[in-house]
């Protein structure tokens, strides 16, 4: 499946974006991380049939896209591969729940369709925030932020080392797959008995590399702790950032802003 191998290239794209400069890049990664986690939790807390109520939260990805100078196309392209699975799961709602729930302009919408839309919105909102977080922060910086937020050290070190070696191994896998395709008459899917030894060979090489890396570490005085560099400092603007967005998120959850806005406009027009 080419899709999976292309995924490694997308990690590259994230890296390039993260290396850029923007007001959002300058914010402390901890502030951004905490904001996203809060947003994700709040999004999930909406009742099943919420559609309109989630609209104010779209301010987050909209503002962050702009502030972070991230191209909209990039975010949409990253959302696309995950969309089919969500649709597959979500489509059961309208199939099962057929009872009409709301009437809009003469068309009766069943509860199922509304919850379907809700699931889609949750996906769009939550995922775009995660994507923006990584695009504006950079993975290595994010890991440092995790460590400063007291995530277990061994785990953070794992994330950093894993990230470093994914590209290398993806390249190897690509080469192995190509070699197979060239000698199997164009077949991309490997025959089952061959797969075992192919993966076995790859694994041997990988474990050999793991041993050599360890030896290189020992050669340079490794004592068991990999240092994680973090040079960011918390400023007042980071507090404002975090508090400001937190207030907006909680407000959007507590008060149905679109509803109030709509009622207000209708009254004003009437």
């Amino acid at each position, binding site marked *: 499946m080419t899709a999976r191998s292309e995924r490694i290239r997308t990690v590259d794209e994230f890296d390039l974006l993260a290396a850029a400069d923007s007001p959002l890049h300058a914010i402390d990664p901890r502030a951004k991380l905490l904001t996203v986690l809060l947003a994700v939790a709040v999004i999930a807390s909406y009742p099943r049939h919420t559609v309109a109520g989630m609209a104010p939260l779209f301010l987050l990805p909209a503002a962050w896209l702009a502030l972070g100078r991230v191209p909209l196309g990039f975010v949409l392209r990253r959302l696309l591969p995950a969309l089919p699975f969500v649709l597959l799961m979500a489509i059961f709602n309208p199939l099962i729940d057929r009872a009409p729930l709301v009437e809009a302009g003469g068309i009766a919408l069943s509860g199922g369709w509304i919850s379907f839309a809700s699931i889609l919105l949750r996906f769009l909102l939550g995922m775009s925030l995660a994507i923006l977080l990584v695009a504006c922060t950079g993975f290595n910086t994010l890991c440092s932020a995790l460590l400063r937020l007291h995530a277990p050290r061994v785990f953070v070190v*794992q994330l950093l080392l894993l990230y470093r070696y994914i590209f290398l191994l993806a390249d190897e896998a690509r080469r192995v797959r190509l070699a197979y395709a060239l000698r199997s008459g164009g077949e991309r899917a490997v025959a089952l008995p061959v797969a075992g030894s192919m993966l076995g060979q*790859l694994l041997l090489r990988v474990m050999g590399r793991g041993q050599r890396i360890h030896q290189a570490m020992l050669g340079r005085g490794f004592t068991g702790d990999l240092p994680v560099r973090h040079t960011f400092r918390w400023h007042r603007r980071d507090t404002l950032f975090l508090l400001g967005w937190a207030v907006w998120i909680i407000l959007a959850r507590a008060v149905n802003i679109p509803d109030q806005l709509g009622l207000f406009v209708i009254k004003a027009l009437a």
Partner: protein
Amino acid sequence: MHMADALLSPAVGGGMWVAAAALSARASVKLRSQPSESLAPMMAVLGAFVFAAQMINFSIPGTGSSGHLGGGLLLAILLGPHAAFLALASVLTIQALFFADGGLLALGCNMINLGVFPCYIAYPLIYRPLAGDGSSPSRRLAACIIASMAGMAMGAFAVVAETGLSGISELPVGAFILLMVPIHLTIGLIEGGVTATVIGFISRAQPELLTVANRMDRTRQSRPVRRVAVCLLGVALLTGGLLSSFASENPDGLEWSIEKMTGKKEIDGIGHPIHTALASLQSKTSFMPDYDFRKDDAADKDDARESAAKTGTSLAGVLGACMTLLLAGGVGLFLRLRSRKHL
């Protein structure tokens, strides 16, 4: 098999996050206390191997489709449970952040479903006892297959439970189970076979590589009974919780199914114990879909009433939503134009 944010409630997601975080912390502590060489580089390259291996698709005979290695059991055999769990947790984190595989809220669920079950249950409780010291290839094959299938099944059940308990998807639990479990058992079967082949390959080529896990496991063997009990308790709670949460709410259904069962017994006219057992199994699987449907109906009505009340008139809500979105877009555009000027 990844759980998605969009189908998760904060209660379920948060609960699983707490469990996953606790287990990660515990695994980290266990690994730090290892006096001898650090597994960090090996864990990392094996995590990267999981990524790489998932790029190599193998054709599943007889189905015309293809699959790839999940890697959970393989890592557990090579690294031992704690290191394998952390390696898998880091792989899942990167998948969530970069490939939108699941999402941030669902990360805890995925760590449990795809990490805990192979590393802390399938490997120590099923693979190790069955495979013994690993010298017999046929025993190893059987152990890999059974452990893999069990891990997959547990993961599938967990996904169903998490989705059902969250209440955002309306997929009926019974149908969901029937959908998920057979597929995952098949995947488990294939994966077990491939894992066994790979391990066999390593044991012939460089057997000393397999001793890392054994060294790690020496610490676990100190209190096996307690661990087994805790794990079995956990599995029992999970399945028990799932079943009981549905059983308790609709006694009518239970009575109805019992009647059905006794009716069947009368029709068959055979008091054979096997028939009774089969009949009760049949009734259990048949009442669940109806069960859920009824439960969903009731919850739906409440939800609907609640939603209707919150939105007031639908027109106002939609109007307000459109305006809010336009405003949000406007703010975004404004900020983008402003930042361009500052370049």
